[in-house]
């Protein structure tokens, strides 16, 4: 007659092991800045290049090879899609100050990527650079930037 605990113990262990995740995923938390929803778009006779912080990012992964963050950059558009304002994207480590115009290396419309090489967390600030036309078609412009983080 087998003691009862031999049956209980293995099932207990199996049940609790099931709670732990089978693999870890990278994570991203982004918080949009208030100025991002109120961008200066000039367009009333003159225009200049604007570099604006649009989000604070918290990224982390348990993956031993680190993560890759991919950010899409399309254009700010009106509802009809005409006269878009293209923009470029870059990130800097949190607290390191605004990037300069030459720090934006990815052309508008292409994806911007930044990677780490080991497990861990990082805080970043996301900036965009854009130059409206001197005479920009009046109206409301907006867009949604997508961010995806994957393990390397």
């Amino acid at each position, binding site marked *: 007659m087998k003691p009862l605990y031999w049956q*209980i113990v293995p099932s207990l*262990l199996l049940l609790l*092991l099931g709670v732990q995740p089978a693999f870890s995923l990278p994570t991203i938390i*982004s918080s949009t800045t208030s100025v*991002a929803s109120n961008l*200066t778009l000039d367009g009333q006779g003159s225009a200049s290049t604007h570099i604006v912080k649009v989000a604070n990012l918290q990224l982390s992964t348990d993956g031993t090879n680190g993560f890759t963050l991919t950010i899409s950059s399309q254009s700010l558009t009106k509802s009809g899609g005409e006269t878009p304002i293209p923009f470029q994207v870059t990130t800097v480590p949190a607290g390191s100050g605004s990037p300069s115009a030459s720090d934006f290396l990815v052309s508008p419309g292409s994806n911007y990527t930044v990677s780490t090489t080991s497990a861990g967390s990082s805080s970043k600030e996301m900036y965009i650079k854009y130059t409206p036309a001197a005479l920009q*078609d*009046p109206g409301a412009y907006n867009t*949604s930037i997508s961010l995806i983080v994957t393990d390397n």
Partner: protein
Amino acid sequence: MSTKLIRRALIASGLFIGTAVAFSPTAFADTTGSVVMGGSVTSTLNLASVTTAGATALDLDGDGTTPTAHIVQVADLTIGTNNEQGYTLTATAGSLAKAGGTSIAYQVTSVANGEAAPAIGDFSAGNYTVGTTAAGETLTDLYIKYTPAALQDAGAYAATITLNVVDKT
């Protein structure tokens, strides 16, 4: 021996439970995020009109002269907009009127700044409209055409042209 086994199993299960609780995040984290941005541009549509000296000293004949069409520049217009589709200008036609007298009808047209005066055939009845098809500023000369009667009631005649600009959609 059996109680030791159970004790070890319970201790191990306690560790697992503690770890599971620590994994639950305080803020929702995912593998994707989005940043919504926006701004707006206001229309710069503007109109400035300067009346010419000749507009307030129109030759109204009426003293037996054979009726002749007069074509006179009455204003210099500066119109601008950032609207990509341009603007539409409307100028009202009407009559130079005098209380107790027969009015003198006039028609309106325009030419680009500095160009030669329009010909009789360039005028048509009704309110005058003209537009552009792109953003920018334009300078325009506004003209009227009128033909007084051979014998026109003596006195002072006056009229006001109303100008209106709107952005095209």
